[in-house]
């Protein structure tokens, strides 16, 4: 995958591109693309993959003009336009799934294939989601991974909070990334999507790790009810980060749209 830049109205956008075949846009989750590199490489064996970064993620410029859900939705449409894509397979994971859903709901005639991997965007009072904005780094693995011990090892690799320089870099990255995510997800990742889901016309595949503890699979049912004709693929032995834990299974599910 190659890291490139494309100009948009408000901000230059960094994106990964690779592979051949049908165009596919992958929108990342609140954690960014760090864990998804292997998944993207595998995905690029089947699709021409474009994975733009939300402004503020990775080394990309922040964008103060993006404040609310509509801004994020239209900005991401701007990115698709700037990349010269028309009706790509639209795939969103977690926060990216929330953005992808909004894109498909706001402009339903330009999205015909949609894959949502454990998307955010809904809230069920009986099943409140954990608050990622107050979590300490070591608290994440049980929510993210099917195998928290293995996940903890991966997440803490190279992390040394007692090194002030590392700590500062870590805090800056968190502030940039989760600061941007907070605009659409804080304090509750519900910006009214439930009342717009009915507008989605795309053939939609919902993909969920069966042991997802961050956005539990009960949310899959709510999305399924909201999007007419959508199908659910539950992936066994996968947590929230299903693309990381079970890349081939996730890719197989996405490929049902091809």
């Amino acid at each position: 995958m190659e890291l490139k830049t494309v100009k948009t109205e408000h901000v230059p956008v960094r994106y990964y591109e690779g592979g051949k075949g049908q165009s596919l846009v992958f929108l990342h989750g609140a954690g960014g693309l760090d864990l998804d590199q292997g998944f993207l490489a595998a995905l690029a064996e089947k699709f021409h993959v474009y994975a733009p970064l939300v402004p503020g993620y990775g080394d990309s410029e922040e964008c103060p003009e993006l404040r609310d859900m509509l801004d994020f939705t239209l900005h991401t449409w701007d990115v698709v336009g700037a990349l010269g894509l028309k009706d790509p397979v639209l795939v969103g994971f977690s926060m990216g799934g929330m953005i992808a859903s909004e894109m498909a709901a706001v402009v339903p005639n330009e999205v015909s294939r949609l894959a949502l991997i454990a998307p955010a965007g809904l809230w069920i009072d009986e099943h409140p989601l954990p608050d990622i904005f107050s979590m300490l780094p070591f608290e994440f693995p049980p929510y993210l991974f099917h195998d928290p011990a293995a996940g903890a090892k991966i997440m803490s690799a190279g992390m040394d909070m007692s090194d002030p320089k590392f700590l500062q870099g870590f805090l800056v990255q968190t502030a940039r990334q989760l600061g941007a995510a907070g605009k659409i997800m804080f304090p509750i990742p519900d910006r009214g999507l439930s009342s717009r889901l009915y507008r989605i016309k795309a053939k939609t595949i919902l993909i969920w790790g069966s042991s997802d503890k961050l956005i539990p699979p009960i949310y899959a049912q709510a999305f399924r009810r909201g999007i007419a004709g959508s199908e659910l693929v539950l992936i066994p032995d996968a947590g929230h980060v299903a693309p990381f834990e079970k890349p081939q299974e996730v890719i197989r599910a996405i490929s049902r749209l091809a």
Partner: protein
Amino acid sequence: MKFTWFNLMPWPYLPDDFRQKYRSVWVDIDSKLFNPEKSHELYNMYIDLLEHAGTLGFDGIGVNEHHQNAYGLMPSPNIIAAGLARRTRDVGLVVLGASIALYNPPLRVAEEFAMLDCISGGRLIAGFPVGTSMDTNFCYGQIPALTREKYREANELIMRAWHEREPFAFNGRYTKLRYVNIWPRPIQQPHPPIHIPGGGSIETFDFCLDNTYSYSYLSFSGYVRGKALMQSYWDRVAERNTPDTSPYRAGFAQTVCVADTDEEAERLYSKHVSYFYNRCLHVFPGFADAPGYRTIKTIQKGVLSQYAPPASGGLFPQLSWKEMVEGGYIIAGSPETVRQRMEEMIKGLRVGNVFCLMHIGDMPKEKSMYSTQLFAEKVMPKLRNIFPEYASDNRFWCKPMANRVSPGALPAEVDLRAMANADD
């Protein structure tokens, strides 16, 4: 010098094993620990203490705003200040302050502050905090990365409401009002002096200098640790060629305990100070700093929340009396010890406004009054004249009306019929 007796109003009944059993004193504090009946006595005791301080020669008595917090029982400081406005005569009322980004519309703050200023005869010193991340983001749901923009807009709205004399339309991003026309208006014109409590953001330094607001650092870690932050403020003042370096451009909060001797101070106060530092400041580190609340520039400068966990991870270490005194977290001891260290603090930080935290943790009222009285009689008078060249700088303090009424002065026994008819 301007000395303000400041009270946080802590809940004094947190259990001994609070640190072990509960994760945070703030935000998700166990509501079962609050007892409304006990709070009745407590609130009245705290208000008594503020009123008592108001009779001892302090320039101000101060309150502030916190939410879902067991060391700060004032979600609405203006309610306390309203009571104080009636029950005190001359002392300044420091509301440090009302979190202007939290009110919808923020005009509410302009109105309430105007009411306080009118009731008190112009004794209000107003504060506009951005608010901690705990209060603003986690308790009151403001989006961290947008909090500062919303705050700036609220400030602009309030200032225009106080300055302009005709109704105007305000088309803000966060607040839209067709007719801004506040009623009542403050006695102090165009508005009461503004203090901004901050935690070291460069943006807040500039905001204060741009608007001639006083910058206050409300830290609990004392002047030794406050030094670097206040120095960066004064560096910024110099860098921007600010026309003056008046010490009244700055304030600092300091925990102060006075007794006859250093030993008596330790004996009387150490367990209450320990209660405050070791229980009341037990904040879950995940609430310290919602991502996006602090700007990148500020993080890069190395300014972290005072509630952030130590770099080593885990909880704050338990601090002993000795560590707290020697580390400058608190200023405590005999009047002479306290005078020396206060002078060191005032000169070292160059602060004209000192917010004295003199009720600490679970202190009973008698101890707080004893400490307060010693400070007022034996310490404060000796510190009055540290910055004589700025004695006339009144930009940052209230300017009360000359002829103020005495509240509660209705005649007790009169012939109401005769008086009512006489007035007709």
